[in-house]
Structure formats: C-alpha cells, structure tokens
C-alpha cells in the first residue's frame, strides 16, 4: 500500500487540528487565518471543525495580539498566533524581548507563557527586500524563547505538536519554499522533543549542519555528491537556539570537516554559533570550517539577482568538494 503523503502546509494543518482536539485550551488567531487561503492552507477546515471560538481573525494589531496571546497563556490557555510574514513580527519585539522571553525567569519559574508564534519566511520568489527577509537570528539571541525551524512535512507536524504542548514560548518559523514539499507523514499525532537535532543522512566524508529550508538544499546537494562518491552526515538542528551538540561533535570528530548552511544573514546566526561551539570544544578539523549564508545585503527582487542571492544544491556540492580537495 502506498503510504500517505502530505505537503508541509497540510502537515501543519493536521498538527493544529490534532492539537486542538487534544486540548481545548488551544486556539488560533492572526490576520484572517480562517479565511481565503487559510495561511497557505495551514488553517483549512479548522473553522468548520472547531467554530469561531477556537479560530478567529484578529484586528491588524500584531503587538496587541501578541500581548493578548501572552496574557491568555499566563492564565492557562495555549494560543497559536500566526504572522503570514515574519516581517510583521518586528512590531512585536517589545512583547518578545521585554515580556515573553523573561517571563519564566523573572518569576523564578513560578509562572509560564506557553504560546506558539507561527511566522512565514518569504524565501520563494519575487519577495524583494521587504518580504524576503528572515529575523530568526534576532529572536534566537534572547534567552527564554525557543526558535523552531522545521525542514519537512513530517518534521513540521511533530515539531508543531510539541511546540503547542511545550510550556515554553516557541517561535515557529516556516520557509515558504517548503510549503509544497511532500513526504509521508504519520496520521496519528506524535511529538518531537525540542532541542534535539535529527541526523538526517549518515555518511563519512563531511559533517553538514542545517535548519529549515537549508536542510532541503543540503539533501539535494548530497544527491549530487553521490556521483563523486562523497557522502555526508547531515544534521537538522530543528531548534536553532537550544542545540544539543553531542551527536554533531561526534560526527565532526570522525569527518574532521564541517559545513553549516543557514538561509539567512551570517552575522550572529546559528552558523556562527555552531562553528564557535565546535571551536571552543577544541575539536581538531583538517580543513577550515565553512558556512554558507546569504550575502550581507537585502534581497533584490529582480529575478536573476534573486536567483543568485539564494544558495542552491550546486553551492553545497561545490563547497563540499572544496572541503575535500587538498588543503
């Protein structure tokens, strides 16, 4: 029997429906999640199934809605708020930096804010400098918030279910480039423990670390590398600021080569964090560590420039071969 496949968007939809069935304190709001388009299909049928108490449109007030969710979470609900573009979250930096991220800490653990903020990162086509950006590194700098970046449909489902059930605040970032990817997704609810990277491929030559959309690029790169008989250990970080490094360290001890991919600007990103942790650990590499990130520039809309801006499987392929060529 052919196994059931879901797209990334459908998997998120299923995760939300299952979370809402498991727990009636889960509700969804944001800019018209229940209407036209349903946020890339991720909120399809939820209004029909659960009614307007559980999913409703918010006013166009990102700050107010984030505060609403935080206050509701503190009194025991499990809100999911959705920003169709991560750019809008800039408005909410006060709620994140000054309230939500320090809530558990400042109460000495006595009070918690279990909420999920879903936001979409523009990476696909034509989004230009405004809607193409990602802000994940600006968030991941803060203690007290977990930043999840799912890389595939089955990952998205398990990570989102865990995020909703987590007692910590979670920012859940979805690359638009992933919405149409498809794979088998188990029908029952399941949970992925936050903070544990997943070993996605097992190889012997190079350790590659990625998260979100860059995992897909790495998988494609690994496919091309087969012709050169090169294989990689590929790790999907899943959460970019809560990283258990032991498995990655062990892999690097074996390969002595590391490449980190980050679909975002390099400064202060997880790529620099991962490489720093490897360096601090004192693991001997036989090649300089390498990262591939976005250029230090805003994204040009013009098609050929945009195509040049994002790294591709070919860049991964070449970077890996470079790492393997003589010093």
């Amino acid at each position, binding site marked *: 029997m052919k196994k059931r496949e879901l797209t990334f968007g459908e998997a998120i939809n299923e995760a939300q429906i299952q979370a809402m069935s498991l*727990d009636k304190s889960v509700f969804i709001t944001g800019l018209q999640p229940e209407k036209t388009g349903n946020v890339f299909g991720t909120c399809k049928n939820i209004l029909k199934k659960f009614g307007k108490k559980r999913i409703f449109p918010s006013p166009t007030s990102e700050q*107010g809605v984030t505060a*609403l969710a935080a206050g509701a979470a503190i009194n*025991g*609900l499990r809100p999911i708020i959705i920003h169709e573009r991560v750019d809008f979250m800039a408005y909410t930096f006060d709620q994140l930096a000054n309230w939500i991220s320090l809530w558990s800490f400042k109460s000495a653990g006595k009070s918690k804010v279990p909420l999920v903020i879903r936001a979409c990162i523009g990476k696909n086509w034509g989004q230009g400098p405004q809607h193409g950006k990602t802000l994940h590194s600006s968030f991941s700098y803060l203690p007290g918030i977990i930043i999840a970046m799912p890389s595939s449909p089955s990952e998205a489902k398990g990570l989102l279910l865990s995020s909703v059930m987590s*007692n910590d605040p979670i920012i859940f970032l979805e690359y638009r480039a992933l919405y149409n990817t498809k794979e*088998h997704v188990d029908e029952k*609810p399941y949970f992925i423990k936050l903070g544990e990277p997943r070993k996605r491929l097992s190889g012997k030559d190079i350790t590659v670390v990625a998260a979100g959309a860059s995992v897909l690029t790495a998988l494609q790169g690994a496919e091309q590398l087969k012709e050169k008989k090169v294989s990689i250990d590929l790790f999907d970080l899943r959460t970019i600021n809560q990283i258990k490094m032991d498995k990655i360290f062990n892999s690097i001890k074996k390969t002595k080569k590391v490449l980190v991919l980050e679909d975002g600007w390099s400064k202060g990103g997880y790529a620099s964090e991962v490489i720093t942790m490897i360096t601090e650990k004192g693991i001997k590499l036989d090649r300089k560590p390498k990262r591939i990130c976005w250029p230090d520039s805003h994204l040009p809309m013009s098609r050929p420039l945009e195509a040049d801006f994002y790294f591709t499987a070919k860049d991964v392929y070449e970077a890996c071969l470079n790492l393997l060529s003589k010093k």
Partner: protein
Amino acid sequence: MTLKEKLKIYYNLLLIRNVEEAIEDRYHPADKMRCPIHMCIGQELIPSVLNLFMKTKDSLWSHHRSHGYYMCKGGSVKEMISEFYGKKTGTNGGLAGSQELSYPKTNFYSGTILCGAFSMAVGDAFSKKYKNQKNVAIAIIGDGGMEEGIVFESLNIASMMKLPIIFICENNLYSVHTNLKERQNSKTIYQKIKSFGIKSSIYKGNDPDRLHDILKKITSDVRENNKPHFLEVSTYRFSGHVGPEGDDQYGYRPKKEIAYWKKRDPLKYYEKKLDKKIKNFHIINKKYKKKINKIINDAFNFAEKSQFPEKDYLKFNYQNTYSKIVKKFYSKNIQLNVSQKDHKPKPY
C-alpha cells in the same frame, strides 16, 4: 458603605503609606535594596479602595508604580521587601526587583516597560471569558503610558471582543518630569477612550467614599456584562519619580501645585473624616499603626535573615516541560506505528 468597609480602606491607605515611607527611610545608607524603586506615596487612593472589590481569582496587572496594588491584591509585605533585598524568599525569588514584582498566588503581575502589562491584561481577560470564569482582569496605567501605541491596539481588542476588564488610568500629571501639557493635546484622557466604544469616566477627587461608590458600580457592571470600562482618576505623586530621594530640586513642578495636592492628601483627608464620624477612632488608628509597624519590622527582619538565591538561576529561563497531555497521549497509544526511522516519537 459599612463602617467595616471604611476602616478597611483607611487601613489600606495607612499600610501603603507607611510601608512606602519605611522603604524610603531604610533605602540609604544601608543600600541593601539594590534595585530602582518607584514609590507611590500620594497615590494610595485607588489601590486602597479597589481592594474591596477584587476576588483572588481576579487578576491585577500593574504598571511600574506597583507596590500599592501589590499589597492590595493580597501580596505579602515580607516577600516584597525580601524581593527588594534580592533574597530567595522574595516574590520573584530575588531575581526581578521592584520593577517586575509578580505574585501568581494572588494573580498579581507587573512590569516596568510601559504598557506591556496593560496589554497582557487584555489577554488575561480574554482567557477568563474563554474559560467561562466569572472573573475580571484589572489593568493599571499612568498618563504617560497612555501615549504608547499598543494601548490603543489593546483598547480596540478589548472593545471588539467584549472582554471583562477594568482599565484604570492614574493621571498624576507627569511622565517622569514632563507635564501632561507638553505631551498631550487634551486635559483629560478618558474622553478619547469613548471613541473605542468603551464606557469611560473620570474621578477627580480624593474622597475614598466617593471612589468606593464609583468602583462598586464599575466592577459589578463589568462582571455582569462582560464589557470593558475605563476609569481615569486624578492623583499626585508626593515622592520623586524613582528612588527614595525626592526630585523636586529639579524644579519640574510648581511649588504651588505641590502644595495644592498635599492639601488633598487622601490619607490625611480620610483620617480626619473618620475621626469626626467614628467614636474612638483614635484608638483604632493607634492599633492600626502599631499593627502596621510590626508588619514592617517583621518584613525587614525577614528580608535581612533570608538567603540570597543560589547561583543556578539559569534553569529559570526555560520551563523545559510539556503539557500533561503528551504523557497521557503516549500512555494510551503505546503502539505507535511511525515509519520515519530517524524520529521515532518517544514519551517524555
């Protein structure tokens, strides 16, 4: 209003005043309370009266000038002073200080970044309605806070969603050292709120009995009708904006104005009023003062004797736990048939 209620209000006024003065007195030169503190001397009226209309399950979200509200929401004076000392027995385990006092036990929260607490109170009110709890949220803000954008988002949300919330604005005329006249093109704030479709009113006096009647009406109205209300109250801060030291040497407010308000000191006003009305009030008053004095001394002794927090504070940043539903789920579905060999779900 019963005699008991009047005495309770008087006691509250006196408690807040005396605790605040004790903090001012003992802050220097001991320097053991190592955090910025916003005193509320002069502004005791609202918390003292509000106290009579709050249930434990109602929540109160305060701005930075929070001590009065904290005490009137059932907060322990011991734990508050301990918090200022940075001790483990403090309200927030000594990690937060005066500016972020919180006391989940009685549903009291506060924070010093203007308006965050105000806007989160709206979410709290939302959750109360969502859960069919018959409780209200109360949000406190200053006239300065009313100039932040998020306030208007939150008022709109509270109005649209018909939430059980009472907004109270303490208009003390100043944001730090800048007068309202230099900041807003209107003398009152409550008028603007009406356009949000929120019932909005003002009280300009210093009489606890009058405020009692007003708050009684508002609280029962909000409880019964699940709709927000906004109340502006004129008041005046006698102490400096921040810290135990006064700040009138900077000349930011006219001497005449200070004198005008000091003549209207709510505590002195009420003391006189009750003295005229109640036989033997001076005996009760003496008893109260003694009782409060003991509370204060006990609190400072408690703080002095308490330990500083351990150094493992890192753990408080994350809860690192999940809803019980996760465990329950796995205990019922042990036979999970997941094919992704790399991420077999496991119970945690």
